[in-house]
């Protein structure tokens, strides 16, 4: 069969072209090309083409690579106790991810096969560009209770403590593994998760998932920091995909940090943070700005003129969000954030079911998210307007090296 659909440029047709996109992905991962001066989060060449991001590399794409506009994040429970079957599924997933991130249909494609059998690919991404799809896999603490993996559980993969104010919904919390799908086209991201779930039936089952839009932070710091649903810029100083030193220091697991299989990986904290937008919207501008410690128009820290001006923390109220979250208040702690806004319509009371789906990557959550969140949960003025309702932690293994490699090999291969 073929993917070519009529005369419009197909996803596969673009593959031949995407040498440029592939080179970009590899370069960003390797840090050789500065995309930071592009003026926004999107590399112009890749954006124009909706190009492909290289799937292979020392690190998984979807962490330090430029943040896309849309998210479909899914947490899975493992349903099989057969290790070989689980490994085969990870290999099948890797093969499908390799194709989907390149903009190709999976398996035998979405049409042209037996009329009486369902096609391998569900087809809703046919004709769409690769849209910079990245697929990033992670392993949750509970996975290590299975398949005799207990002694491979990294010490850094702790069970997150309960933070003050948490109101966690079991059905939005935890998971044996996760896949983060980011793309510029929501349909491309949803297609990817849907097809992985389908391949996984019987081996894994989706526990919960979250759609996101409007990235709330970027890994290519630029003139326009995205705003969250409270209308504020946040995470201005997020780590850039090009800052090799900071990535090495704060994001990538280094040699000797923990089990060898995690070297080159990272740890991901996912939190569903509900925002009480109705009460926020009734809050005076002064209080809104005090809560964040920034002005609403520019995003400049209190007493400063421009967003990127160095904040003077002591000028902010002691409970201001920026002051509490800033590395200077946290012994230099820095995390890489890839958060997305979400809204799942309205709740039964007619309130917008909306907020921030917080995704943060770090080298060690015990030195990253946990102390940071302890401080924020205890003191942040923002807590009056937000509530953490979902939570999960995953070990993000290193990248898939080449076409013979697969997701989780360093953890699960018999040689490993």
């Amino acid at each position: 069969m073929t993917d070519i659909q009529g005369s419009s440029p197909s996803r596969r047709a673009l593959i031949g072209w995407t040498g440029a996109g592939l080179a970009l992905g590899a370069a960003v991962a390797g840090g050789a090309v500065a995309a930071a001066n592009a003026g926004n989060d999107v590399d112009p060449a890749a954006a124009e083409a909706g190009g492909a991001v290289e799937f292979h590399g020392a690190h998984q794409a979807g962490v330090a690579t430029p943040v896309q506009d849309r998210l479909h994040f899914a947490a899975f429970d493992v349903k099989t106790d057969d290790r070989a079957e689980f490994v085969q599924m990870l290999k099948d997933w890797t093969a499908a991810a390799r194709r989907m991130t390149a903009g190709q249909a999976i398996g035998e494609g979405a049409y042209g096969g037996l009329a009486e059998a369902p096609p391998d690919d569900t087809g809703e991404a046919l004709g769409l560009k690769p849209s910079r799809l990245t697929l990033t896999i992670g392993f949750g603490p509970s996975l290590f209770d299975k398949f005799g993996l207990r002694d491979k559980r990294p010490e850094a993969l702790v069970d997150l403590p309960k933070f003050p104010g948490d109101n966690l919904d079991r059905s939005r919390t935890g998971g044996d593994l996760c896949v983060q799908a980011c793309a510029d086209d929501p349909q491309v991201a949803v297609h990817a998760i849907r097809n992985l779930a389908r391949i996984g039936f019987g081996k894994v089952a989706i526990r919960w998932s979250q759609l996101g839009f409007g990235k709330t932070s970027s890994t290519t710091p630029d003139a326009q920091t995205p705003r969250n649903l409270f209308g504020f810029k946040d995470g201005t100083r997020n780590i850039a995909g090009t800052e090799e030193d900071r990535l090495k220091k704060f994001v990538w697991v280094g040699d000797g940090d923990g089990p060898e299989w995690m070297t080159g990986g990272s740890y991901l904290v996912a939190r569903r943070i509900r925002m009480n937008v109705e009460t926020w919207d009734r809050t005076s501008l002064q209080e809104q700005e005090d809560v964040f410690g920034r002005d609403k128009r520019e995003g400049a820290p209190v007493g400063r003129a421009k967003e990127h001006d160095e904040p003077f923390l002591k000028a902010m109220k002691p409970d201001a969000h920026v002051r509490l979250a800033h590395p200077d208040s946290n012994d230099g702690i820095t995390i890489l954030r890839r958060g997305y806004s979400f809204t799942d319509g309205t709740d039964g009371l007619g309130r917008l079911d909306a907020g921030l789906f917080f995704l943060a990557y770090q080298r060690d959550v015990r030195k990253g998210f946990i102390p940071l969140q302890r401080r924020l949960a205890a003191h942040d003025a923002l807590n009056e307007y937000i509530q953490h309702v979902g939570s999960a932690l995953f070990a993000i293994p290193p990248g898939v090296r080449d076409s013979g490699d697969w997701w989780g090999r360093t953890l699960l291969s018999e040689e490993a």
Partner: protein
Amino acid sequence: MRAVRLSVVTAAATAAALTALTGCTEKSTAEGSDRAIRVTATDSKCEVSKKEFPAGHVEVAVENKGAKVTEVYLLFPDDRIVAERENIGPGTKQTVTAEVKAGDYQIACKPGMTGKGIRQTVKATGGGSVAKRDPRLDQAVAAYREYAQAQADETLPKVKVFTDAVKAGDLEAAKKAYAPSRLGWERTEPVAESFGDIDPKVDVREDGLEDGQKWTGWHRLEKALWQDKKIGAEEKSLADQLVTDLKEWQEKVGTAEITPTSMANGAKELLDEVATGKVTGEEERYSHTDLVDFKGNVEGAQKAYELLKPVASKNDPALAEELDKQFAALNALLDKYRSDKASYEFVSYDKVTENQQKELSDAVNALAEPLSKLAAAVVK
């Protein structure tokens, strides 16, 4: 269940064609390629542009120049359907594609979509000949037909127990006989539904009614017994009607169009019924006997699979192994909801927790996904 489902019939129409397929096909080239056979259909003629063509992928490009809606068939000499296209309106064009091996065929136009059609004999040339259907598949179809008939035959007496209790005004006895009276129907639901006029009379739910449609059948009585908790003259007369309607099913079931692929996809459809209606508790919202239907659906799917397994396990051993495993897993899970493996008394579905429903749903997905590949394994 849905109001009208004709899936078995439509599946049957294309199923025969698949027996001529040879694995994955190449999507064809532009219309008007030299492979295309042009058919000019009128109300009295069926003209073909060529009577011989090379075996392989063929396109039958039909233009209806008549005044009546027509349909065009490509047929094997014994009238089995290779490919067909219905509802070709006057002045319109349609293309029918098929994979054919060398041999004789017929092209039939049916102006007004009735009768045996106006026929032309055509010939596919080249090596080889059309594969005969595996005799084991014919045996499977025959055995499944017997199974469907037996289910209907065994159901009628159980329905009588139920309806007699209703007519006697015995609420408790009627409640007890309700779920068992449905088992045979649930086991063969895709076949039962293929008679589109019976299903809406016996198995429709209140929200499935069309404007002006009178609510009759099992679920209407279910509501009377469990929600209204009373049996009146209306219910007694509905009980009689249920028997009448199910007798029609019993008489027709032997005539259902059944093919190996419709069996395979029918098995998958039974799991779809579970996934959409039973797992959610919608099917038996008053009686909460969903798990009995659930079990019936799984048993019916498993029967169809077991009959096809000799061929399926040869063509795709890994698939057969997976299906064996997933049927066993789902059945083991269902067994947790009954005290005795021989009994059809299951836990009331309103006692099944959300987590348990998720577990059941996951197990259904785990089986239904590989089951959707059974049809391909059967015709490979």
